[in-house]
């Protein structure tokens, strides 16, 4: 529940000068320190006592953290401290990754988006993360600075596929600092859709969120491949693999889409909470997958 007191519990704010220093500090204080970006989730958790960190380690000022880099051959790299509004307003992201823009625009409010980050949204590992799904269906990976296999420290790539272990839990280790998320170039001819059901038309967390990406692929029996990611219907951001298979195997039709939507509904494991019941979430998963895939299919020329 929200605590209306304005104050936060005591902690020490740490601002390391380098990535190495940040990583070493976080490793030395495992379990009592965490990296901090926009704070839009962290401060809520600290305030309500769910997190009790002694140290909050600001990493937003470290080199490259505020950069957006688009390479027409290699794709997009978004620094960890880039906020949602900067993503929404960036011409290259608008031109090449409209699905990410659509997802980011659905996040909370303008004020929140001027602090909230895509990397924070991912690392927070909420099943409801709005931009997580877009990064997953686009084949995203995180750039992580931390302990390396040789015992030293260095950069490594961590794919989002397999990144999430449970609500708030990821494969990241103490001492890891995520510096950016990388998205490869989207598949040629693709179309995407993010559909979010909230209690209000805008501003709320997702009761159910459906991210769909489709693209032509001659090697698929249906002529298309689809990637789907579902928010708020499982302990982690969820990929309904069987639904994706149905959409690539059968010739695409309204009936095939309905069958895929039913498969997605049957695969999810939602909870009851203040935003909706498990049964409502399951049924809305079916409806929104059907709606999102249909919208993508129409834009693909189906």
């Amino acid at each position, binding site marked *: 529940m929200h605590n*209306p007191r*304005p104050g936060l519990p005591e902690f020490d*704010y740490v601002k390391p000068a380098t990535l190495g220093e940040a990583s070493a500090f976080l490793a030395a204080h495992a379990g009592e320190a965490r990296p901090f970006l926009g704070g839009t989730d962290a401060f809520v958790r600290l305030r309500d006592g769910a997190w009790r960190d002694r140290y909050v380690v600001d990493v937003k000022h470290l080199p490259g953290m505020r950069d957006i880099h688009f390479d027409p051959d290699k794709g997009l790299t978004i620094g960890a401290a880039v906020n949602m509004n900067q993503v929404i307003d960036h011409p290259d992201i608008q031109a090449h990754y409209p699905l990410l823009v659509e997802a980011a625009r659905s996040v909370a*409010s*303008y*004020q929140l988006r*001027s602090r909230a980050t895509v990397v924070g949204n991912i690392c927070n590992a909420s099943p409801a993360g709005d931009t997580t799904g877009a990064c997953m269906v686009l084949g995203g990976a995180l750039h992580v600075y931390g302990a390396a296999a040789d015992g030293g420290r260095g950069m490594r790539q961590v794919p989002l596929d397999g990144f999430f272990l449970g609500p708030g839990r990821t494969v990241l280790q103490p001492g890891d600092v995520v510096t950016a998320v990388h998205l490869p170039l989207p598949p040629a001819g693709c179309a995407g859709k993010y559909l979010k059901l909230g209690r209000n038309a805008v501003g709320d967390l997702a009761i159910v969120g459906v991210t769909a990406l489709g693209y032509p692929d001659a090697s698929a029996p249906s002529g298309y491949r689809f990637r789907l990611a579902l928010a708020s219907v499982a302990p982690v951001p969820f990929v309904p693999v069987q639904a994706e298979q149905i959409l690539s195997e059968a010739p695409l039709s309204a009936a095939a889409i309905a069958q895929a939507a039913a498969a997605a509904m049957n695969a999810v494991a939602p909870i009851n909470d203040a935003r909706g019941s498990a049964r409502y979430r399951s049924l809305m998963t079916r409806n929104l997958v059907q709606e999102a895939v249909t919208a993508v299919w129409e834009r693909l020329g189906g």
Partner: protein
Amino acid sequence: MAWHTITFTINGETERVTVPSHMTLLQMLREELALTGTKNGCAAGECGACTVLLNGEPVNSCMVLAVECDGAELVSVEGLADDGRLDPVQQALIDVGGVQCGFCTPGVLISARALLDRNPHPTEQEIREALVGNLCRCTGYVRIVAGIKQAAREAAHVTH
């Protein structure tokens, strides 16, 4: 508990204060600088009553640490009027009756000013989108939206 001495500008004035790590920007404004126009509502980044400009962009000041504002340029509702002359958005909200209890008003004014700075001629939809993070329990928003439209029209009239 760590303390930090920070320097920033607030409403054009340079300030230097020493703050504990866990003090929010909202607390610093209200309790250290006695700028109580900025309100504490939900303390969770949802209601927008604490909205201020941080380097020109609206933020929920309950969700920003004071120490993060070292070197920053801050504007709170007290900084909107220029030498006693109200900002056009302030005047318009008074003119159209867009203020009732007034608790949300400082945050609404900051969001509206930021909107008009980045988009001088917003559509009604754009105005409503810019106010998603400013909850008002009195007005039903209609007169707030009308006030922002009026401020935009008057600004256009002055410029052209």
